[in-house]
């Protein structure tokens, strides 16, 4: 319960701080409140002043922040400068694509990373270990955007590129963790007693490694969302990663900070869920 409250407070603080940062960035960004009408020489000084006031240019930062928070509470995330569409609508249109990309990528990364780590550690085969280590080492040295481009060239599904980008970190962590678990005294005893590899894995190794792997699952969500930007841009997938890139190119800060906040909240929620699911039960604690 205490942890749940702690995570809820953390999410709240992030929302408030993120909101403040977003409002500050948008309010202080060069060109805030400027419009094409400002260049119209036919308008009088009073008209320009009235237009500026209507756009809220002369608002102070705290007032702007309070108005921003008020709008946020009502679910109004503002309007995109580039497309003049509602940010909320843009997110609703684009998020399902990114969700599908990240889910497919994570499923692929975990299958590949954990599978290879298990094979490398449990098989004790030097060739297998070297091959898996080499694959992870090569992939980790290639920029995510280039990996996505290689997927396009190979006409492979772009969503799997997210998985390949996340895979090496998962593999390396899981390999080290499983390696340590397999070297624990009770596992060595079980092996000496002649237990089968599957039984050792299921009954003696996985229960020890489950909690750190769960923590890794939370972190991998954040990595997958970060990987979604280059993948969606290069593979032309219409998700929020591509939207963020377009917003960066058109300097649409309002949209960008909302996207960053959304992904931060998702990452924090994933980490909190992993932490809450991974905490020891009352029986384990006693």
């Amino acid at each position, binding site marked *: 319960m205490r942890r749940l409250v702690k995570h809820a407070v953390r999410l709240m603080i992030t929302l408030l701080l993120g909101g403040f940062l977003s409002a500050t960035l948008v309010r202080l960004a060069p060109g805030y409140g400027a419009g094409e009408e400002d260049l119209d020489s036919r308008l009088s000084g009073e008209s320009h002043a009235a237009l500026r006031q209507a756009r809220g240019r002369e608002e102070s930062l705290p007032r702007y922040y309070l108005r921003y928070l008020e709008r946020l509470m009502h679910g109004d995330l503002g309007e995109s400068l580039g497309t003049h569409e509602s940010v909320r609508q843009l997110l609703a249109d684009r998020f399902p694509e990114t969700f599908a990309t990240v889910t497919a990528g994570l499923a692929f990364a975990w299958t590949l990373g954990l599978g290879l780590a298990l094979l490398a550690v449990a098989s004790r085969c030097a060739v297998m270990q070297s091959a898996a280590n080499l694959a992870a080492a090569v992939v980790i040295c290639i920029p995510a955007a280039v990996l996505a481009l290689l997927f396009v060239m190979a006409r492979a599904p772009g969503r799997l590129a997210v998985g390949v980008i996340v895979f090496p970190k998962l593999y390396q962590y899981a390999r080290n963790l499983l*390696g340590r678990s397999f070297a624990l005294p009770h596992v060595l005893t079980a092996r000496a007693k002649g237990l089968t590899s599957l039984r050792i894995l299921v009954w003696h190794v996985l229960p020890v490694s489950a909690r750190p792997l769960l923590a890794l699952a939370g972190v991998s969500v954040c990595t997958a969302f970060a990987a979604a930007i280059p993948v969606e841009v290069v593979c032309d997938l219409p998700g929020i990663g591509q939207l963020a890139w377009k917003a960066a190119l058109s300097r649409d800060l309002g949209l*960008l900070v909302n996207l*960053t906040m959304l992904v931060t909240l998702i990452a924090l929620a994933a980490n909190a869920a992993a932490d809450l699911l991974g905490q020891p039960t009352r029986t384990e604690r006693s």
Partner: protein
Amino acid sequence: MKRIRTASILFLLAVALACGFADLIAPNGYARQYRDAPEAACSRQHWLGTDDLGRDRFARLLYGTRVSLTLAPAAALLSTLLAALIGGSAGFAGGWFATLVMSATDLVLSLPWFFLLITVRALLPLNVDPRASVALTFALLGCLGWAGAARVICADARSLRSSDMILLARASGIPPIRLLMRHLLPNLKPVLYAQFWISIPVFILAEANLGMLGLGVAEPLPSWGSLLRELESFTTGGAGPWQFAPLILLVATISCFHLAFEKEDQWA
């Protein structure tokens, strides 16, 4: 392993030397256009051919590597210094200050750094000079990449703070500044060096990703990111295999950084 490490360091030195003497190896520079030979294939005059604007690819590769290999360590130094300042002070002070600083660090760590990076990158003025753009890009990377290192440094500083050596120094009445400078910082050196070397390949890759998305170093200044953008022409056809040269050099350099400076696996 020692041989591989030595070979990696030698390779990195060779690359650094080639980039250092880029003015001698490619005296015509990275921006000169051979307008009669755009998109030329490999030849004795242009070892890696020319790009679509007729610029010598080999010269651009040398100068681009120089940009990345000079500024990525500078960004790594900046992030390590920030991490040492934040993590070290939190670990050394302890108490509520450490809790507060580490909570803020955790919060920064949970931010999707690539989203944050392109947001801050979008704030930069459009009419910025290419040299300023490259410095700003790497300065941004340095300023945003401190959190992970700060956590490690804070944990080390905390364990040092409660060590017998520091307790004895405190009991002897050594002032806090002297304690920090003479006893804490020298003992944190190994972890600071490790964080510095680990950060370099991370920043090189981050710049390459930004460059591929058109948000990195401004033209005509080359960097690995802008050179890798040429690979996009492979999807439309009409590109030669020599265009993979920047990617091969990048992968080789990053691999050498990993092999030369990362510690060996504990479990193997």
